[in-house]
């Protein structure tokens, strides 16, 4: 009896001690790791990638390529972007990056005076190199180091040739573009027009609109009213294609029309998939991102000075609806 009681007491004691010890362990132990402190002396380059849009397939790929290259080169890359083309926010991001004295800025070109002033005066003041990506702004106006992206003029030509191939050498073609006429759009337009001018049977109908949905819808409506026999639409700016296709779809069969555009907008892939758009110019966003980071690091390291002012072009090709996955 005594033995049992002693054993019981020792057992209870051990049990309580076990629970106490585990409890102490829980209190003392902490899995949390303090983040590593900064090394002030050995700073890597800080690059900012500033875009007008984020979370679109095109820009996601750009960022992916850029991040990959940044990691390879051991530089910090911060992406600054905002949703749905808010120009003010975009410019603020750019200005912030300039005032924060980053080592290099990769920016989607915006053909406005404010943008040019920032790049030309502010960035130059802090001597921050700027590379435009995807959309260019002429070097004379922006003092950019170089441009990385598709050759827009050639892209326009390629698209026009595809149109001629599909539609034939005669017909009415609506050339739909943004009335603010950014530089890249002008180049595309020039390329398209250069090709189409060779065919007298093709009449080009230029149509201007803003990027606002309402305007796009209204302009499309007006176009359809004025030119009921139109054969083809080319959206020079990918931003307007969604509204355009939607309005056309309300009025007539979309399939019977030849609709072409570029791939740098989120809606394009879906329309292509649904066969609403016949073909698009496919660019290489990942390569753009990768190349831009590589070039700016090379410039910063003094390996490639100066950079090619004309720009470094990435490949383009035609993606037809039937090719689309």
């Amino acid at each position, binding site marked *: 009896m005594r033995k049992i009681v002693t054993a019981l*007491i020792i057992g*209870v*004691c051990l049990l*309580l*001690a076990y*629970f*106490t010890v585990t*409890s*102490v362990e*829980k*209190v003392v132990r*902490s*899995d*949390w790791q*303090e*983040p*590593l*402190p*900064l090394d*002030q002396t050995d*700073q890597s380059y*800080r690059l900012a990638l500033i875009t007008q849009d984020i979370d679109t397939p095109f820009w996601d790929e750009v960022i992916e390529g850029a991040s990959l290259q940044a990691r390879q080169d051991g530089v*910090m890359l*911060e992406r600054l972007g905002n949703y749905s083309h808010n120009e003010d926010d975009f410019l*603020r991001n750019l*200005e*912030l*990056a300039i*005032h*924060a*004295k*980053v080592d290099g800025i990769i920016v989607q070109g915006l053909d406005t005076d404010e943008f040019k002033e920032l790049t030309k005066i502010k960035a130059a003041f802090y001597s921050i190199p700027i590379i435009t990506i995807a959309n260019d702004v002429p070097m004379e106006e922006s003092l950019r180091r170089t441009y990385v992206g598709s050759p827009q003029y050639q892209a326009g030509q390629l698209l026009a040739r595809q149109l001629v191939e599909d539609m034939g050498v005669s017909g009415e073609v609506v050339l739909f573009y943004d009335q603010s006429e950014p530089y890249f759009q002008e180049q595309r337009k020039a390329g398209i027009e250069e090709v189409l001018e060779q065919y007298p049977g093709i009449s080009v109908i230029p149509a201007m609109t803003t990027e606002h949905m309402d305007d796009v819808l209204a302009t499309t409506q007006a176009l359809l009213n004025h030119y009921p026999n139109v054969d083809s639409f080319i959206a020079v700016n990918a931003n307007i294609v969604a509204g355009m296709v939607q309005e056309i779809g309300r009025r007539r069969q979309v399939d019977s029309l030849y609709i072409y555009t570029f791939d740098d907008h989120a809606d394009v892939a879906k329309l292509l998939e649904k066969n609403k758009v016949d073909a698009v110019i496919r660019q290489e966003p990942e390569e753009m991102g990768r190349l831009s980071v590589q070039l700016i690091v090379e410039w910063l390291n003094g390996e490639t000075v100066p950079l090619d002012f004309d720009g470094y072009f990435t490949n383009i090709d035609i993606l037809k609806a039937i090719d689309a996955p």
Partner: protein
Amino acid sequence: MNTIQKKILLLTTIVIVMMVMIWSALTYYNRQTQEQYNAILQRYLLLNEINEVSQNMMTDLNNFLTLSSVDHLIKINDSQEQLETKKKEAWQLGHQENEFELINYINLIGSLSETVERSIRLHDQQDAEAARSEFNDASRIADYISETTLALVDKELKTYDDFYRSIIQQSAELNQLGIWLLLLLTFFLIIVTYTLSRSITQPINQLTEAANHLSRGEFNVEIKVNSNDEIAFLARTFNRMRLNINELISEIHLKAQLEKELQENKLLLQESQFHSLQSQINPHFLFNTLNTISKKAYLEGAVQTSDLLVNIAGLLRYNLRRLNRSVTLQDEVTILKQYIDIQKARFTDRLQFTEEIDEQLLSVPIPALTLQPIIENAIIHAVEPRENGGTIHFRVYDEDEFIQIEIEDDGPGMPKQKAIHLVQGLLSPEEGHSTGIGFTNVVKRLRIFYGRDDLVQVDSERGTKISLRIPKQKRGGMM
């Protein structure tokens, strides 16, 4: 010695040490947590301060540009300095997670300072428009600082999220630890206290038990206490007391025994003296008369009668004089022979008496009238009742330390039970002895005289043989 006081002190020390340990552990832990909280708060406070200083500087700059007062300029310079120091402090906030934002932040502060300086310089150069434009820039940079502050705080929250949660978790765990610790300590202390109190009370109980035994008069139970403190000391003392009492009691018993024997001895003496007094009727008259008769008989030619009368007179004298004195065996033998002569005169041929006596041994002391009553017994039982009479053998011989005296008759003997009673002195003395002294009286006097019990042996198979073993060296004895 492990005293009770030591035990209590030990318990108290254990409790105090435990409490101190827990208290210091908790205090240390609290301090640590407090420091962590402080560090976290410092980070936020620093960010907020930088933000505030930059905003204030903008207000001052604005006022300065409008009013051109020196006060504001001083304030601006003040703020500039503050920002400079804070900028250095801000480096401490950096870690891998917020590196980009933090460097942005620090650079923004630098840009702000520079822009503000430019603005002041332009103002000094009377270029109001340019100064204003720089001010606008500065104001936007201040805004960016605010934004970046928010971004940093946001990042901070994200980075330290796990940490904050672990702090909350830890405080919950601490509560649980408190409960477990309380349970453990309570249990432990109960056990320790119980054991301690037992170790104190158990010896007391054992002692109480022992005291009960003693009070009931059981002095043979040893007092044992399983401990080594003051109680054990008490128990040892108690035990010694018990032993002492035991010794005293046995001593008292012994004394009482001796007292009793002494008393008995006195009684026997008185009895003998009484008997002798009874037969002392004018002994001188009896002596004189017997002597006169003896001379008369001698003169009348009755020599035998004369001798007989001399013998009787000698016997009588002996009887009267030597009763309470020790005599030698020689005296006894002499008186025995006189007695036999008298009896022979009475029984003539019916009484045959033989003797084998080692003359060397006759000098030992012996109580008076030891042998005569035994011979008289033999004559009474073995010769008198029988028509043919009987034979009595008397032997004295040496046997190591003892002198063996044997009186043997060839009478009918006696039952065994009677013989045993005779040796033990249980039979009451019979009437009819000439000296008034019976066998029982002889046995008892011998015992007292020599101080031992194994002196008399009665064998009664054929006839009766009384053997006396008289030690050559008398040891002790009362007479």
